């Protein structure tokens, strides 16, 4: 463990060249911009910069790609908080509390909470990776389809916490999200629910659905408000760097959820296929469990919600490097792209990487630390400029947000299909809002649908159709028991409360 820390410091020392620092800064800025733009996300950012990265030496190249990976997580939070348009899937949870905070006149505090928590999550994740990386990677391999299905079920149940006042409408929204997620090819390549439309064979692109449900439906809401005097609690003093700083009390509120989510998020990030999105859901649900009742409720502007989801998604990014570097197994789509980049440079991630190329391995890990800190600086510098977006009048926001939504939706697959999906999702989101159906469960369930189904079906194949497999495997059983506790305990508490106060 201590040897690893020593190697890490050596890696940092070898990274401290002008070129490496410059590419880290470039990666941070580009990743930040790409993450903030709807429709792109970290996969697009990393893959678009691959040609540039290949022109550099391996250390500088992987440093730049790692910077982009981290910075997109920061950037996604900015558009989620300020515009309620999540830049990527993990930022959906951030928008649940971040956007209400911005509407209540605390956009800067929400952004600072996001970047501080992201930094804490990234640093803790990388420290865990440094000290326990290979051990955790081995542990991650014990998670088969049965365990992953149980974990996905736990993540889906976290949606239940977001159902608001009407659980029936929340269930309908979640089921609707699952059903539209099943459109397209299943895990065996069988087309289903395409109704003869060729484009639907590839399913509905997440980013287009997200931009439509959250972003474009927002535009439709703004159109309704045209001509009305909109009361907003945002005044000029909130849009300065001084007015944006969180108070000491708020910093104290940020730290516990950020620390908890960093540890849990790293563990989840290590699991192949789980990723930052699943990590953000579960850590948000965990925070809801720990949330104090005398604070704002989660989902209506609680700073703890922003801290939990942002720390989770950045620590999961760090965790995803554990199976990649230690075992040569990519844990997510982005790490798969990084794996291909490493192979182009002639490096073979795996147990021998630390033996055969220790300088490169530790420089890579050190570059992730450096990029985390540099992105924090870039984000802090950007805050006073970016929060000025809230001063833009609605009459200009309508066409600008429409413009960005459309080009973002097109950029997903370089096809107008994304734009159509975005427009239809916007209409659906508008109608759901009018009928007071929550839209967050739709998107969250949509994201988890294919992963959940894939693991359930693989588990049932393994057990030849016997459902008992979910209860016979120890890790799966533990996860299901945790789920049972999370569902039953609040129910028992409410029954006991009602029994104690019969006259009321």
């Amino acid at each position, binding site marked *: 463990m201590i040897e690893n820390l020593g190697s890490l410091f050596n890696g940092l020392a070898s990274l401290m060249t002008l070129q490496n620092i410059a590419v880290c800064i470039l990666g941070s800025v580009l990743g930040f911009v790409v993450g903030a733009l709807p429709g792109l996300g970290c996969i697009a950012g990393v893959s678009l910069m691959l040609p540039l990265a290949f022109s550099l030496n391996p250390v500088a190249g992987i440093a730049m790609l790692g910077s982009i990976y981290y910075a997109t997580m920061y950037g996604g939070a900015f558009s989620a908080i300020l515009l309620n348009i999540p830049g990527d899937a993990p930022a959906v949870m951030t928008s649940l509390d971040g956007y209400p905070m911005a509407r209540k006149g605390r956009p800067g505090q929400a952004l600072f909470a996001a970047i501080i928590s992201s930094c804490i999550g990234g640093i803790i994740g990388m420290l865990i990776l440094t000290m326990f990386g290979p051990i955790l990677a081995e542990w991650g391999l014990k998670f088969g389809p049965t365990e992953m299905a149980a974990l996905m079920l736990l993540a889906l149940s976290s949606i239940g916490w977001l159902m608001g006042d009407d659980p029936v409408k929340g269930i309908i929204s979640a089921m609707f999200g699952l*059903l539209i997620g*099943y459109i397209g090819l299943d895990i065996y390549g069988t087309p289903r629910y395409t109704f003869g439309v060729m484009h639907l064979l590839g399913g509905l692109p997440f980013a287009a659905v997200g931009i439509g449900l959250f972003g474009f439906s927002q535009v439709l809401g703004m159109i309704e408000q045209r001509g009305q005097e909109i009361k907003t609690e945002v005044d000029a003093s909130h849009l300065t760097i001084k007015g944006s700083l969180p108070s000491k009390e708020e910093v104290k509120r940020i730290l516990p959820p950020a620390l908890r989510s960093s540890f849990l998020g790293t563990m989840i990030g290590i699991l192949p296929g789980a990723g930052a999105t699943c990590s953000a859901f579960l850590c948000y649900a965990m925070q809801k469990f720990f949330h104090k009742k005398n604070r704002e409720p989660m989902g209506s502007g609680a700073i703890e919600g922003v801290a939990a989801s942002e720390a989770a998604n950045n620590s999961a990014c760090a965790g995803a490097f554990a199976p990649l570097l230690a075992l040569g197994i990519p844990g997510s789509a982005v790490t798969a792209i990084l794996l291909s980049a490493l192979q182009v440079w002639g490096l073979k991630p795996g147990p021998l990487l630390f033996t055969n190329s220790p300088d490169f391995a530790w420089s890579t890990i050190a570059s992730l630390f450096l990029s985390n800190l540099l992105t924090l600086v870039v984000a802090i510098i950007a805050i006073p400029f970016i929060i000025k977006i809230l001063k833009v009048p609605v009459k200009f926001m309508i*066409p600008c947000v429409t413009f960005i939504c459309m080009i973002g939706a097109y950029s997903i697959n370089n096809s*107008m299909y994304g734009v159509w999906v975005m*427009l239809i999702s916007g209409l659906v989101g508008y109608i759901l809002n009018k009928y007071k159906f929550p839209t967050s469960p739709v998107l969250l369930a949509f994201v988890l649908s294919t992963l959940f189904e894939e693991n359930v*079906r*693989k588990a049932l194949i393994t057990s030849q159709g016997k459902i008992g497999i979910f209860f016979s495997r120890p890790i799966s059983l533990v996860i299901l028991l945790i789920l049972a506790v999370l569902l039953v305990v609040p129910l028992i508490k409410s029954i006991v409360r009602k029994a104690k106060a019969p006259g009321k």
Partner: protein
Amino acid sequence: MNDSEENSVFPVESAEQEKQNDANAEKSAGETTAKKLLWIRQLLPAAFILMSIVWIYQGLTKFGFFDRLKGGTPAFMPILCASVMLVASVIALIRSFKEEKPVFHILCFIFLLLGGALIYLTKLIGLLPSLLIFVFIWVKVIEKSSWRSTLIVVGLMALIGYGLFQGILNVPFPNGLIYDTLFY
């Protein structure tokens, strides 16, 4: 009232009474219209019920529900989810009779139709020019902003579209029929 009005077979109403009657007539017409449109409350739950039935029917007829060897057919999870949605939607439909009617703004639907029309315009002149024209029309014509504001907004969007997305991120936006005909 004068003698002729008193002796009139048909009672003559005063101006105030006429106004009162007009207001009452408008109110009852509005109430009738509102009552007629109350079925809108049931529209979305009914749509979800229909969707559930379609998903279950398609799944059962095309794939079946469960295959022991393959661990569930392609319709296994969709049928389970659609069944839950069907039950919940029926409950929502029953509850909807006590809910308020949702109020829609016609301008939102017109805006969506414009969005669809914009996509067809893309085929002719390209995506970015179509969108910039839309931004220009919205800011200058609909919102009646000054030329300065209009040019700033359009310029900024052009910078984002052409500079950032097309220039730096190399997103290949469609150029449209006219551009392709002239320059290819």
